[in-house]
């Protein structure tokens, strides 16, 4: 059932640019970006049991990586930019994780939040390096060496770039699928369930938490790179704590207890936000209300709702 659902979703996403108006197609790009970022985020949250309130830090590193590479270093290759952004995120994540994974629960959350705010103020204050509140422009990259110079910006984004990102989502999704079912993934679950018992079974708890943290940072950076290219700008808001909160929101909305939950959350959040923003200026209020309802009534998120409905349909 799940495989059929995933294949149908990929086919639908591949056909989407042909069917929908460009506005909606450009909305899917951030959903791809957040989808990848949240797959990583949920390895730490859902699978390892560590809830970070600072992972926008790594999304921002991905975005600024793309900005610095394209605007300042003159690097045009998207593949190279991804590699640079990802490496930068992992490099920053090592010291952050070394300190953070010594703690769990709220202490871990607060520490990651602090690192996120630290990075935000760095982006904001160091004007010469980061461009301050205006940030840095992100130039259009080449895909596999192809510049698509004849396409205007939107056609590029909803054309080749769209399919490239869909491909990235599928590849990173498959990799994560393997990771959570691997011996490594099982160790993470054991750590989440009972870290003391895991230690006595020979599991190096902190080290495994660290590795999970690095993988999550890498995924967030890939997401951030896509976001920045889509917007054409990297700005400090990306690292702000409310953005970290949105990552948590999306994951809970989709359902952190299932593999596909974060992906469902990313897509629903982007479309929900866009529809609510168009309908009312109180969209934040309605988003908050929806989150409250989800947490109280469907702690397993939209995926949980879907499962319940599916079971009812099958029984009839």
């Amino acid at each position: 059932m799940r495989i059929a659902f995933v294949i149908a979703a990929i086919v639908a996403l591949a056909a989407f640019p042909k069917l929908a108006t460009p506005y909606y197609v450009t909305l899917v790009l951030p959903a791809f970006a957040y989808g990848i970022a949240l797959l990583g985020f949920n390895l730490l949250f859902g699978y390892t049991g560590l809830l970070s309130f600072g992972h926008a830090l790594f999304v921002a590193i991905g975005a600024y990586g793309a900005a610095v590479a394209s605007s300042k270093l003159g690097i045009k290759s998207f593949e190279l930019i991804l590699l640079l952004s990802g490496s930068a995120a992992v490099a920053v994540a090592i010291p952050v994780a070394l300190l953070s994974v010594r703690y769990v629960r709220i202490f871990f959350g607060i520490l990651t939040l602090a690192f996120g705010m630290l990075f935000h103020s760095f982006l904001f204050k160091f004007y010469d390096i980061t461009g301050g509140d205006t940030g840095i422009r992100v130039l259009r990259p080449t895909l596999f060496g192809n510049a698509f110079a004849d396409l205007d910006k939107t056609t590029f984004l909803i054309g080749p770039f769209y399919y490239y990102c869909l491909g990235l989502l599928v590849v990173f999704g498959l990799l994560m699928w393997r990771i959570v079912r691997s011996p490594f993934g099982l160790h993470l679950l054991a750590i989440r369930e009972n870290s003391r018992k895991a230690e006595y079974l020979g599991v190096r708890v902190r080290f495994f938490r660290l590795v999970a943290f690095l993988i999550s940072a890498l995924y967030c950076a890939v997401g951030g790179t896509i976001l920045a290219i889509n917007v054409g700008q990297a700005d400090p808001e990306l690292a702000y704590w409310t953005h970290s909160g949105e990552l948590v929101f999306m994951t809970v909305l989709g359902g952190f207890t299932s593999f596909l939950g974060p992906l469902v959350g990313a897509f629903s959040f982007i479309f929900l936000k866009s529809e609510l923003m168009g309908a009312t200026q109180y969209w934040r209020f309605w988003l908050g209300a929806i989150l409250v309802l989800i947490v109280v009534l469907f702690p397993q998120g939209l995926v949980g709702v879907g499962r319940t409905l599916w079971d009812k349909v099958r029984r009839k």
Partner: protein
Amino acid sequence: MTALIETSGVRKAYGEFVALDGVTLSIGEGELVSIVGPNGAGKTTLVNVLTGLLKPTGGVVRFKGQDIAGIGPVLLAQRGMARAFQLVHIFPQLTVRETIAVAAISQARKGLNLFASVAKDERLRERAREVAAIFGLEGKLDSQAALLSQGEKKLLDIASAFALAPEVILLDEPTSGVSSADKHGIMRNVVDAARRAGVKAIILVEHDMDLVAEYSSRIVALQAGRVLADRPPAEFFADPEIIAAIVGKRVGRLANEA
């Protein structure tokens, strides 16, 4: 008889309070050594020192000839000593198969394998079946640990320690919280399993003197942080002074309560 575990002159002090005061003992292959003593005698401290969790203030503690003072649980497991706790420690949302697999993977040092499939690993499945069968859990391989009965949870806890293929296993009151009818069943199961799994020595911390008398090959009695007696069960229970010091107190207390 070669000594697997040796301590000599182990001392552990917390400020003024001396929990262990010159404990010297040795545990060899084929032994099941029970550690007994009244509450506060230092049993838990000794066990924590023997398993490398606590670093003694003085003296040495060796496992297979290597100093293990304060090495911590992970290295201890890797070197071949497993520990099961008095309170049940399980992974509530993992199945019996997954729980055993956690230990088997860590024992094979394959935890950093990011892309292999646990479910499709036939050797891992076989190992899980094998260990589960020893403890009569083979019919529950796909049950979630949280849904097992209390006795089964206890067995799973111990089974996962066995899946490390340890040379020494330390059992901290393995039958606590189990009905007295089941106690002997669990002990017999564990001792049998140990023999079959190639465990070379068992250390048992136990209050129940019936179990201690029946299964131990040697009994170490602690009192106020010192070794009061270190003898085979027959000699141990033949000495009225020791009985008074170790068992008498419990009997006396129980009599008062009744």
